């Protein structure tokens, strides 16, 4: 019985991260990568994977050490845990995915400063056991990945007429979509769309957060 209940709540956690608390479209934290690396699906996907990995590992680590960390020094301690895992990701990507890393190396390093990772560590992992923390990290990371891939999908399709580097449309593309400007437009319009769907089909509660 309790086992079944646990299972449902785990799925709920993952769903929560992807839809109702989507880190980019709903909670509006960590917006930089949403614009910066989404000029193509591939870059968005790789960035999403990197964030997913860091978020899960940070949640697990914070959850394991939560009883040893004095509440007064918890934020600096979390920062160091995050920085450690980001260094791991950064060095691994530099070794195994050179072409992607050459394009967005700086943004991989900046995962440290993404508010979403610290927020989840502070709000969730520091109070929960290891397993729920893992699923929370999975959900939030997957939500992030989902958002980046969606934005990348539209920007690459419209801006280059291709997907994952393979040509799809054979017309002259809208160059503006892969420029910075197009990134802001794409995120704004998709965010509005998410809100509109929220208002239309789930009644209210669509307005996204203030942004931090």
């Amino acid at each position, binding site marked *: 019985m309790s086992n079944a209940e646990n299972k449902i709540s785990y799925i709920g956690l993952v769903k929560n991260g992807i839809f109702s608390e989507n880190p980019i479209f709903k909670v509006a934290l960590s917006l930089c990568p949403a614009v910066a690396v989404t000029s193509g699906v591939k870059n968005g996907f790789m960035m999403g994977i990197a964030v997913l990995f860091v978020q899960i590992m940070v949640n697990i680590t914070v959850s394991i050490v939560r009883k040893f960390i004095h509440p007064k020094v918890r934020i*600096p301690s979390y920062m160091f845990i995050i*920085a450690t895992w980001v260094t791991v990701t950064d060095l691994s990507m530099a070794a195994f995915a050179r072409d992607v890393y050459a394009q967005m190396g700086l943004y991989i*390093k*900046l995962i440290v*400063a993404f508010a979403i990772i610290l927020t989840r560590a502070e709000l969730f992992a520091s109070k929960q056991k290891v397993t729920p923390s893992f699923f929370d990290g999975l959900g939030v990371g997957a939500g992030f990945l989902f958002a980046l891939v969606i934005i990348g999908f539209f920007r690459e399709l419209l801006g280059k007429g291709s997907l994952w580097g393979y040509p799809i449309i054979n017309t002259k593309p809208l160059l503006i979509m892969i*420029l910075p400007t197009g990134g*802001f437009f794409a995120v704004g*319009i998709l965010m509005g769309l998410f809100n509109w769907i929220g*208002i239309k089909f789930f009644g209210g509660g669509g307005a996204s957060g203030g942004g931090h």
Partner: protein
Amino acid sequence: MEKLFELFIAAALINNFVFTRYLGLCIFFGVTKKMDTSIGMSITFTSVMVISAALNWIIYKFIMIPLGLGFLEIVIFIGVVAGFVQAADTIMKKVSPGLYFKLGIYLALITTNCIILAVPLLNVSEGYSFIESIFFSFGAGVGFSLAMIIMASIREKLELADVPKAFQGLPISFIVTGLIALAFMGFSGLITL
């Protein structure tokens, strides 16, 4: 001297951190609802930016390079920034409570700003000298302040506009930012570095 000025202009306008490098967006959208807060943030941010870039440069050059710790740059830079912000917070509270009351809340937010970490990382990867990195970080600070002040003045007007419900708040701000970014593209031919 000419090179320094070019670096400053490049960091502030041509490669503006918000509009062409898309960094610091969280803070950018968070504090630009009001002019007062964005001016407060600009002052705090620019000063913290320059000092922390200088600190990081010194630590990188004289501690990390001799010890071969270059690969720990992320951990050490974020540590220095967080430590410096905490120290500034404590010192300001003691020395000038008036200033702390005005600007203290922005200090806490700065640690989660990507630019504060991106500038030391760029200083290292571009191999800037001490003076160059100071000018570069000052340019980054001024560019960010400029972006925030432009955005705040537009958003104050936007409060009165009739925006569709689904686009209220962040979505419309993103679109406005896109338009400003379009204008900033005009700076791109100003200097060729």
